[in-house]
């Protein structure tokens, strides 16, 4: 691990510790306190961005566990998020308490994810990518055409979540819910990666044949990865549904899957920290482009006409540029920056 100078590990346990130094603990603690206080001094709009980031973090961490750590490419996570959103929405509409609905949504999504993960025993790489692509398109079709349940193209209206009699009806209250769930998911995934299961996932990604020959049950572990990953995706979907309070099938189309894949690639495959960076980056990118378009609008008056077309294109362009020039993602860049400052005056 990359600790401070003179840090030597004498046991495996000490090497897999989250915090190698008191400074890390302190800085992360201060950052969390700052985040928790942020709804008091940020504008409503900024808090809503934080909410979107929190939800994206859950989905990105989930996908990174499956794709980045276990090496199973999923082009269907947009649809899995949709399954979670619709299931949670239906349950709360039926009068379930919010957390029960959220958990149930996660479980249903886990089952759906495992169902489409079954081919992963026989399929690898591009075949699995295509199988999950089929899952995405089939589920999108179900969302759109199972009108009696999902409301079809019209969509489904939901209420703000009610927890212990308190309605989370504004961005600030919602922030604490999404932040709590996001923090719990990050902690969960980071801890899974430290266990036997996490190491098995990484072994499967690195070379499935040698993993199998040292006794890793490929099928069981791949299914586990699918289950955990789609469970968290379902949770993200449930939160998203109740945050936006209105869901339509278009929200969960293939573009969403691509966005989540972009997050983990831009952030860094197989890195929990990277998923967070990627989620922040991809969620804030449209905002940044919006600001840029406004600024450019003073020079080119009709740029807003082209903005919609340009936005997706710029998104794709950034994805391509990252893959060519920074294939290890922002997490890698972050490590380089840290290493630079650690040795600051004597960089070489």
């Amino acid at each position, binding site marked *: 691990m990359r600790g401070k100078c003179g840090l030597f590990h004498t046991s495996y346990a000490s090497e897999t510790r989250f915090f190698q130094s008191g400074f890390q603990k302190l800085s992360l603690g201060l950052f969390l306190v700052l985040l928790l206080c942020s709804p008091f001094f940020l504008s409503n709009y900024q808090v809503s961005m934080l909410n979107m980031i929190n939800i994206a973090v859950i989905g990105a961490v989930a996908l990174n566990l499956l794709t980045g750590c276990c090496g199973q490419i999923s082009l269907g996570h947009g649809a899995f998020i949709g399954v979670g959103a619709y299931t949670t929405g239906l349950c709360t509409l039926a009068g379930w308490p919010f957390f029960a609905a959220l958990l149930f949504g996660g479980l249903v999504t886990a089952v759906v994810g495992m169902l489409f993960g079954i081919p992963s025993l026989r399929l690898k790489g*591009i075949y699995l990518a295509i*199988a999950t692509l*089929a*899952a995405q398109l089939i589920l999108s079709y179900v969302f759109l055409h199972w009108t009696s349940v999902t409301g079809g193209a019209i969509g489904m209206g939901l209420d703000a979540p009610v927890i212990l009699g308190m309605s989370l009806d504004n961005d600030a209250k919602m922030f604490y819910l999404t932040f709590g769930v996001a923090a719990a998911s990050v902690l969960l995934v980071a801890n899974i990666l430290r266990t036997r299961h996490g190491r098995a996932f990484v072994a499967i990604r690195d070379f499935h044949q040698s993993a199998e*020959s040292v006794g890793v049950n490929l099928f069981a572990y791949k299914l586990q990865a699918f289950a955990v990953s789609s469970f968290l995706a379902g949770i993200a979907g449930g939160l998203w549904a109740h945050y936006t309070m209105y869901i339509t099938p278009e929200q969960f189309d293939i573009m969403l899957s*691509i966005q989540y*894949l972009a997050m983990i690639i831009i952030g860094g495959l197989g890195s929990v920290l990277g998923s967070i960076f990627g989620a922040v980056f991809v969620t804030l990118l449209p905002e940044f482009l919006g600001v840029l378009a406004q600024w450019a609008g003073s020079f080119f008056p009709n740029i807003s006409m*082209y903005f919609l077309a340009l936005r997706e*294109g710029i998104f*794709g362009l950034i994805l391509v540029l990252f893959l060519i020039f920074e294939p290890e993602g922002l997490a890698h860049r972050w490590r380089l920056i840290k290493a630079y400052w650690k040795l600051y005056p004597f960089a070489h």
Partner: protein
Amino acid sequence: MEYYLQLIVNGLVVGSIYSLVALGFVIIYKATKVVNFAQGEMVMVGAYICFALTVQMGLPFLVSFLMTLIFSVVLGLCIERVILRPLIGEPIISVIMVTVGLSTVLKSLVQLFWGTQIRVFPPVLPSEPIWVAGVPIAPIYIAAFVLSGLLFAVFSIFFKYSRTGIAMRATAMDQQAAQSMGIGVKNIFALSWCIAAVVSSIGGIILGNINGINAQLGHLGLKVFPAVILGGLDSLLGAALGGLIIGVLENVADGFMQQVFSLPGFKEVAAYVVLVIILMIRPYGLFGTREIERV
């Protein structure tokens, strides 16, 4: 009965275009092992370039057709050189995502230049239907079918007998061995992207003549996956048959679902349902190479 016959004929025409796009996909996959998610967008770009040359610049159709093909060659070269070559040796997910990124870039460029509304090609062939076996068929459909068949014949001969074609097959089989025999593997990669771009453009132009074109044409690229998986990812014959079968199947399934269950739009997913079933039963497809792993 005539209802289904009409569906089958339509399916064959759509399927012949799927086959063309699948042909481009398979050529790229065979030679470079790259899964190209931007195939549909390459179809779209070709169609729009031809549209721009014919309608907006007023060139005769044949001239603009040839110029589109030249443009496609350049496009294929650029894509391979700028985007794919730096990624040689990277993991599959990176290669997949780079083509996904490329597809959004191409799509947004098309929207930027031509907007999102449907554009219609000027009719090249007469519109009076020709009666074949009691079913009226528009001449353009027959032209599409014949042209696809012709292209397949040309490429089969090319791969079988020409020096370059044999070099491409050698590269597909074993890159290192090919390189040591003096084949420029990088040139082969570039060439396969060129061929794929040209074939896709031809598909796009045919499609534009049948249905008109809009910025959603790129979705066609996703329909290629069922076709190539059914035929086998690395088989030209498989691509041809797979495209036709998927085309017919989705039309007939759609018609059946509409008539019996009054379920609309089943066309969108019929092919993917088939895809999942094939992947479960026979993932290497009808004619694909079966990969065997031994420890």
